[in-house]
C-alpha cells in the first residue's frame, strides 16, 4: 500500500513538473517566435523586407521546432513551415499584399498554438 501511494505520488509529481515545464517552454518559444514575426511583419508592411529576412525567421523557427516536436502535434508544426515557405516566395517576388497576409496568419498561429496548452475549459472539453 505504501508502495502504491509513493509510486502514485511520484508519477503525479513527474506529470506536474512536466506539465509546468511544457507550458512554460511552449509559451516562451512561441512568444520569441511571435516577436521575430512582428519584426518581419513591420518590414513587409513597409515593403522593405528581403528574402533573407524571411530566411532568418525560418532559421529561428527551425531551431525551435526541433524541441517543439516533443510537445506539439507535428501537423501544426508543418503548417508553420508551409506558411513560412510561402512568405519567403512572396517577399522575393515583392507581392507585399499577399506576403503580409501570410505573415499575419503566422502571427496568429504563434498566438493560437501555445493557447491550446493552457488548462482551460475550451481545451479540456
Amino acid at each position, binding site marked *: 500500500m505504501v508502495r502504491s501511494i509513493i509510486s502514485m505520488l511520484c508519477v503525479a509529481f513527474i*506529470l506536474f513538473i512536466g506539465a509546468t515545464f511544457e507550458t512554460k517552454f511552449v509559451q516562451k518559444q512561441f512568444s520569441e517566435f511571435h516577436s521575430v514575426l512582428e519584426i518581419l511583419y513591420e518590414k513587409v508592411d513597409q515593403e522593405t523586407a528581403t528574402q533573407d529576412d524571411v530566411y532568418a525567421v525560418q532559421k529561428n523557427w527551425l531551431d525551435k521546432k526541433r524541441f517543439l516536436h516533443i510537445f506539439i502535434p507535428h501537423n501544426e508544426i508543418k503548417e508553420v513551415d508551409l506558411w513560412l515557405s510561402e512568405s519567403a516566395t512572396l517577399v522575393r517576388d515583392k507581392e507585399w499584399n499577399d506576403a503580409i497576409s501570410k505573415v499575419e496568419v503566422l502571427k496568429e498561429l504563434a498566438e493560437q498554438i501555445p493557447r491550446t496548452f493552457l488548462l482551460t475549459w475550451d481545451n479540456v472539453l
Partner: protein
Amino acid sequence: MLVTFFRTLIIFITLVVVMRLMGKRQIGEMQPFEFIVTLIIADLACIPMADVSIPLIYGVVSILALFILHQLLSLIEMSGGLLKRIISGKPSLVINSDGVDMIELKRNNMGVDDLIESMRALGYYSLDDLSYAIFESNGKLSPLENPNRNGVCKSVPLMIVNEGKINVKNVELMHSDTETVKKFTAKNGNGIKNTEIMTVDGNGRVYIKYKKEKYKILSFPLSEGIKW
C-alpha cells in the same frame, strides 16, 4: 500535458460510470475500473505509435494518468466502505432460499439466461442445484450448492417460460404445446403471466417460480418415450 491529463480523467470517469450502469455482465472477472484500464490502455499506446503526427508524449501522459487513477481507485478499494461500493458495486444475491431473484438480476442488467449460462460454466445445470448464488462485483458467480442436490444433472433443463413468455421453440423440443404449458402453470399456480421462470428437464422435472413465491419442483407430463 495537463490538458491531456484532464481529458483522460474525464474519459475514465465517464467509462467507470457507464460500466457501473451496464451492470456485471460486461465485466468478466475484473473490477469495473480494472476493465476500463485494460480497455483503453491498448488504444492509448497504439495511437501515438501508429500516427506519427501525434507526439509520443501524448500517449505517455495518458498512460501515466491512467496509472495514477488506477492506483487511486485500488487504494479506495482497499479502504472499503461506501466509496468502494460506488466505484466497484456490491455483490448481488441472485439466488436465495426462494429461488431466482429476478429483481436483483434486472438490477444488474441480466436475465435468467445469463444466470443459467454462468451456472453451466460452473457445472450446475438446474436452477435448484444452488441454494444461494452471488454475482460478485467482478461479474463472477459464486455458488453455494444445494445440499439436497441429486448428484450430477443427467439432462439439460430447457427454459420453457421466462418472465411470463413461453419459449415456443423449447416447448416444441419437448414435444408439447403452449396450451399444455399454460394449463400446467394455471393448475399449479397463478398462470403464465405470473410465472417468472419455468424449466423442464428430460425427465419431466420442473423448476417453476411464480412472482413473489418460493420456487417449486414439480413434474411435467412428458409424452411417452420423450427424453433428452
